[in-house]
């Protein structure tokens, strides 16, 4: 997939971004997944070509990223506590956060201004001549092994990132589509709980497959309340081109 993304922390091909995330060289925290999706949608609209194979691969990669990110979020390091707040309290807290943030953003602007005026001034960068560096002031002595240890990480061959599970997942989405279609053809309306696997990641795949069926007009989805059971109803023969919104 040759999608180029342009993010705060990364500019370049999406595939490379995923590789770097898996290698821990780009922090997933700082990747706005919504931006990537937006760029993908824009590109789809521009090219006008829809390829199920590559799109499902994209969706799976995005799902994997979201899953990894949601794990990080659950392990929140920004100190946000998952307390029950009423809407008014939450609003006030959000407001205070925004006001605080905008102040630092203003300060960053002032720093940029100072930087542009001062960063490239020329200072003399020459160490003191050797004759002034007498042994007397060197009362510390460092172990030479520190130098070997400093170089060792750079000499070690970096591990090849394990991307095998991504390839597996790509196959899984196609397989999951087939499985759901078969089940629906066989037994009619189903609930999500009855078809979803137990594993969280696989559950996500099933969900994406469902969304895919829905967007192709093959099923209607019905959920009465948040986090409630999702009812899946097949819409006759496929591919149905009728508007499947609902």
């Amino acid at each position, binding site marked *: 997939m040759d999608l180029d993304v342009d993010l705060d922390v990364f500019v370049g091909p999406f595939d490379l971004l995923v590789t770097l995330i898996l290698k821990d060289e780009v922090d997933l*925290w700082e990747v706005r997944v919504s931006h990537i999706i937006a760029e993908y949608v824009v590109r789809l609209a521009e090219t006008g070509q829809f390829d199920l194979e590559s799109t499902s691969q994209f969706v799976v990669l995005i799902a994997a990223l979201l899953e990894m990110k949601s794990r990080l979020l659950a392990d929140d390091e920004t*100190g946000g506590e998952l307390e029950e707040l009423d809407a008014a309290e939450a609003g006030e807290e959000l*407001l205070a956060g925004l006001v605080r943030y905008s102040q630092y953003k203003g*300060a960053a602007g002032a*720093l*940029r201004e100072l930087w542009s005026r001062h960063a490239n*001034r*020329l*200072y003399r960068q020459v160490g003191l001549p050797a004759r*002034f560096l007498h042994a007397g002031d060197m009362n510390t002595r460092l172990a030479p092994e520190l130098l070997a240890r400093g170089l060792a990480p750079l000499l070690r061959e970096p591990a090849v990132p394990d991307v095998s599970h991504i390839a597996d997942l790509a196959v899984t989405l196609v397989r999951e589509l087939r499985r759901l279609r078969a089940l629906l053809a066989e037994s009619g309306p189903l609930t999500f709980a009855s078809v979803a696997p137990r594993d969280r990641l696989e559950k996500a795949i099933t969900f994406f497959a469902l969304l895919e069926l829905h967007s192709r007009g093959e099923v209607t989805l019905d959920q009465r309340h948040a986090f409630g059971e999702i009812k899946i109803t097949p819409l006759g023969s496929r591919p149905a081109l009728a508007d499947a919104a609902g």
Partner: protein
Amino acid sequence: MTTAAVLRYDAVSDAYVQMEDLARHLEALLFLAPRPLPADELAAACAAEASAVRQSLVELQSEYGPGRHGMALAEVGGGFTFRVESDCEAVVRRLTGGRPEEELSPALLETLSVAAYLQPTTRAEVAQVRGVSSEWALAALVERGLIEESGRADTPGAPILYRTTPRFLKLFGLRALTDLPPMAEFALSAGDVEEIRTRLVANAARRSP
């Protein structure tokens, strides 16, 4: 052919005088030292009274004032140092090929401003203000010598504390941290805050059933 003489005009005695030894010593120190030197360090090296050093520095500063020499005496980064006069920079760059400092991205500047004003601060605190994890940005700022670790906080988990470096002051042309523009300058007006509140309320109303 000309003969040159370096003289200071002394207004009190109304005469041109040679530079005094203390000023010459300070000049030598400032020329050789690879970093800005605080007045007290200068005084200790010269074995001179702080007040005498202060006075000689003032003299040096006007002798090496704007447009006088190829370098000027500046107070920056917590001390005194010579730097090339801005109108001579082009000539120097032609010889040294010195590469300009790499630009700081908006994300780095934002992280740096949080670290500068809140210092010493932790990764979590920076993340909380910015609303995104800032691990990468903090690491990049450490790598560029703009912030450094300064021990650990006395809170659960003993997180690493960060503070700005003398190099930070130098690159931003600040004498000391107290020279940072006051935070109050960037406070939102009451009207702006109200506007954000209104927008938040409108959004919340749209979302709730």
